[in-house]
């Protein structure tokens, strides 16, 4: 999957999720790499979260603080701007990706730099900053190990935390041997040797860098403090060594007060890398004479975030602190990987964030990229109710496509079937008549007590699972026979319960 052009990022233009997922599922190397990685980190996370008896209290505080910020986002951004200015920084505002990229490129050009060092930033992935800088003759060097791997291979990230999770050591060794001039001829595929090759490649760039670009994990409104949370030290290099630092943040990254860091600096590392604390967290406040960059620019980016803010149920997606815990527990992500989502933000959070960022005009298949199992909500450190938002987005998507179908004057077979089902389910007589008809009609399909293959357009349902046939007696029939007729009611025990009431449950 090295075709960057095929991936539409925040506003996707590539294939739909089901099409892309089918390709990903056929790649057994990808499935092996992903399965190993997601299961490893999942177990580690559970361990370090269990260590904290007050985890649920921290989650609730993390959620509530974000709610407070989002409901008063304009006030907090104005406060942040004033605090950063007071501390000697310059604040810029960008309505969209193009404006963000132009601001950054102008700043780099104004300092006459043709190269910049860059620490990992999802927001600049979203705006495609590197491509925009390249058009202005500026080379942006990615310095996070995984981002470097992605950049050297002209690939796209597939995970929020470990963007090269889909590649294994042999693939990375081959890439480094081919692309890094300093790589030794006998480079091994030991991760230590590979990391050393990357260190040698980047060291000189760091020491000579004049302009650094970073993302932002948290920005504190009352002090103007900006932070980068990381592991390798490349973030410290980018935010400490250059003369000029440009940090790019989505407008939702602001938090009210310095003390609120006590919540997020506990939630993020445990949820993300499954560590009690990540190796390095940098927190700088404007510029400090004689220490670090002497010029600091903070770029506040909207690029669709206000679309998300306008969604009353979906707004909570802006709570996201980009930990990636929801990716690692998701049964869909763990099999398809990130590329199938065709977005900067993959996994469950991407399935809700991407369509809302693009204003619901694209990415219509993403809200269906979920089994609604709820594992993502359970691990989310800021309590984003992803299943609830998914269902709301599906509702909007259906309303949108129904309206479009009406305009065309024709409903799709699925819409027609769902509408008919809706009528049946809302009327007792129709419902019971349908059950009777179903019991009669299913006869030829039942083999050894199971339905293994449904005909026609329904065959998709049974291609992956067997279906329990409708029981001879439904719950309603049983209730009438046992509870309404004779008043000699016996307590209902589970083993008396008949097979089922609805159209029969699926069996995996």
């Amino acid at each position: 999957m090295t075709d960057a052009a095929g991936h539409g990022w925040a506003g996707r233009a590539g294939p739909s999720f089901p099409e892309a997922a089918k390709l990903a599922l056929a790649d057994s190397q990808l499935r092996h790499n992903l399965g190993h990685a997601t299961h490893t980190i999942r177990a580690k996370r559970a361990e370090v979260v269990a260590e904290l008896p007050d985890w649920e209290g921290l989650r609730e505080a993390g959620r509530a603080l974000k709610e407070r910020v989002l409901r008063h986002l304009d006030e907090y951004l104005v406060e942040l701007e004033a605090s950063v200015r007071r501390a000697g920084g310059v604040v810029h505002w960008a309505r969209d990706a193009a404006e963000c990229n132009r601001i950054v490129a102008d700043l780099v050009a104004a300092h006459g730099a043709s190269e910049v060092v860059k620490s990992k930033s999802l927001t600049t992935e979203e705006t495609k900053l590197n491509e925009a800088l390249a058009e202005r003759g500026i080379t942006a060097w990615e310095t996070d190990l995984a981002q470097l791997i992605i950049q050297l291979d002209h690939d796209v990230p597939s995970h929020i935390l470990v963007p090269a999770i889909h590649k294994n050591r042999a693939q990375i060794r081959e890439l480094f041997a081919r692309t890094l001039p300093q790589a030794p001829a006998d480079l091994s595929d030991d991760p230590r040797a590979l990391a050393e090759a990357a260190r040698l490649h980047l060291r000189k760039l760091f020491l000579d860098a004049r302009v650094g670009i970073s993302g932002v994990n948290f920005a504190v409104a009352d002090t103007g403090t900006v932070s980068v949370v990381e592991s390798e030290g490349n973030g410290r290099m980018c935010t400490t060594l250059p003369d000029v630092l440009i940090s790019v943040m989505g407008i939702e990254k602001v938090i009210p007060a310095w003390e609120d860091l006590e919540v997020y600096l506990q939630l993020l590392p445990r949820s993300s890398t499954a560590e009690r604390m990540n190796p390095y967290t940098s927190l700088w406040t404007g510029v400090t004479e004689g220490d670090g960059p002497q010029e600091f620019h903070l770029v506040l980016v909207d690029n669709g975030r206000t679309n998300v803010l306008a969604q009353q149920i979906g707004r909570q997606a802006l709570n996201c602190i980009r930990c990636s815990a929801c990716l690692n527990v998701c049964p869909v992500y763990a099999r398809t990987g990130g590329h199938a989502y065709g977005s900067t933000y993959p996994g469950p959070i991407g399935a809700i964030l991407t369509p809302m960022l693009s204003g619901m005009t694209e990415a219509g298949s993403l809200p269906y990229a979920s089994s609604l199992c709820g594992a993502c909500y359970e691990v989310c450190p800021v309590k984003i109710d992803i299943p609830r938002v998914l269902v709301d987005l599906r509702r909007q998507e259906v309303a949108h496509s129904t309206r479009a179908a009406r305009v065309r004057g024709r409903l799709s077979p699925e819409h027609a079937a769902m509408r008919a089902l809706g009528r049946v389910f809302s009327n007792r007589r129709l419902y019971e008549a349908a059950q009777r008809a179903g019991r009669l009609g299913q006869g030829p399909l039942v083999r050894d007590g199971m339905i293994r293959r449904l005909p026609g357009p329904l065959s998709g349902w049974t291609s992956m699972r067997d279906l329990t046939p409708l029981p001879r007696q439904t719950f309603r029939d049983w209730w009438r026979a046992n509870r309404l007729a004779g008043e000699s009611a016996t307590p209902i025990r589970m083993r008396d319960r008949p097979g089922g009431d609805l159209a029969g449950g699926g069996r995996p």
Partner: protein
Amino acid sequence: MSAARDEILRRIRSALGDVPTGERPDDVPVSRDYQRQGELAGAPLIQRFADRLRDYDAEVRRASPGEVGAAVAAACVAMQCRSVAVPPALRSEWRPPGIRVIDDEGLTAHELDEIDGAVTGCASAIAETGTLIIDGQGESGRRILTLVPDHHICIVTADQIHGVVPEAVAGLGPAVRVQGAPVTLVSGPSASSDIELSRVEGVHGPRHLVVVIVAGPAAV
């Protein structure tokens, strides 16, 4: 520029039509139902800190107040660290005898790249997470000092160790608010898990982190 600012603020206000006009930020309740003070003190607190540091592959050495310089020197020798840069404010009894000590009076990145290690104090520490906090003031030194050299030896006194994260964050408040101090939280040496989630140490920051905990015999 200000057109973008006005437009974004306008979009935000229009997106928040459901928020009552009279609502203030503090009207949105935030419960602080989590631990804001640690439960450990004395020797068990120091022990927790040391255990958590070791968990992340930091080397821990203990010293009484009179032995710090010797403990730092021993760490340098063990790592074959022949020269160290130090913040000018570093007290003399913490400087390692027998090792070349260079005061950081504005050393450049290239100059620091030629020096084997850095010896600093810190602002505070967190036992629960095995974290050192350096704040650019006094004995913490400038950020670049503990970033470029391969080895970082950090000296922590027992009274600087907090139990949990909230205590340390609160403790930093004044330095950030008054001086705008640049703060770095360090938990173990630089590490990456980007290749098959296999942990590799020493990617860009210091490859080795040595922590010297200074405590009287009673606390050890």
